[in-house]
């Protein structure tokens, strides 16, 4: 007889970025953290063009665990650069650090 699969866990991290805006990250992951099932980012920040948020969210959702923070930050920065995007009120490093907290 095998143990049932543990239910996924959803962790919410809310952070007022110093000198920036409020970012709320909800991460649903397998328990123990082995895979991110869903990521959701909301808040009162600005991001131009706005559609870039979906791309950043996809990158976070596809991140492999255990997390490589340096690689993930580089991927997020690439998304911003390739889309000529301006993030105001948060930076990729903030998203990485919030994800680390959500998975801790």
């Amino acid at each position: 007889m095998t143990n049932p699969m543990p239910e996924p866990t959803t962790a919410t991290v809310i952070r007022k970025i110093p000198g920036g805006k409020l970012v709320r990250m909800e991460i649903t992951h397998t328990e123990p953290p082995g895979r991110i099932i869903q990521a959701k980012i909301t808040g009162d920040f600005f991001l131009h063009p706005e559609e870039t948020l979906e791309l950043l969210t996809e990158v976070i959702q596809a991140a492999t665990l255990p997390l490589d923070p340096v690689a993930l930050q580089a991927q997020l920065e690439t998304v911003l650069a390739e889309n000529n995007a301006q993030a105001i009120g948060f930076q990729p490093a903030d998203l990485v650090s919030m994800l680390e907290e959500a998975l801790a």
Partner: protein
Amino acid sequence: MNLFRMIPFQKFDAFTNMALDEVIMDGVRSGGTLPTIRFYGWEPSAVSIGIFQGLHNEVNPDMARKAGVDVVRRQTGGGAVYHDTQGEITYSLIAPLAFFPVSVLDSYAVICADIVRSLHILGIEARFAPINDIAVGEHKISGNAQTRRNGVLLQHGTILYQVDVEKMFSLLAVAPEKVSDKLIKSVRSRVTCVRDLADVTLADLSAALEQGFSHGREIRSEAYTQDEHARAARLAAEKYRTDAWNLRR
């Protein structure tokens, strides 16, 4: 000197206000509409939330419904704003992106200077407070938000005329037990409004804004066209009133 159309203060419901901005953006993009500055109010009062916000994280929908307050998602970022029907004037500036600096922060500074100038006309010593606010001393009097689509910039923002913090908290998603007198006083101490600072009417503020935004621009005073009204009514019904838009996050 760039030619702008200026549309004087007029009140609409929240959904029509957001739809008018989008219709005018489309018109400016196609070249059929002059760059436009419009001043407007909200009838009934409304809460607008930023495009990236979760509606249920920000607004108490039951309280809003009971109070007859509309709730709408903007196409711009930023936070939740309570727009009291008597308490503020909102502006939208819609123009080709080429008129403004590429940097979003720099373009906030350029457009917010128009508001600062308008408040100076009323004797209020306001200043731009980056990222996107205008303050008097350390007290916020105006919040602003921007989007850029298809080569067109939209910046809209509110200028507070009078403040009702208790009403605002009754509509926002803050647990009632947390809305203490202390919190209300704390928020009230961080914001200010025109009526606190100058003995002027809402009409005086409106006139000052028209004058402040006219600086350095050639202005043609006009009304909305019938076509804009018709298209905005359709867009309000098909987008801004829908759960698909307002509950998308």
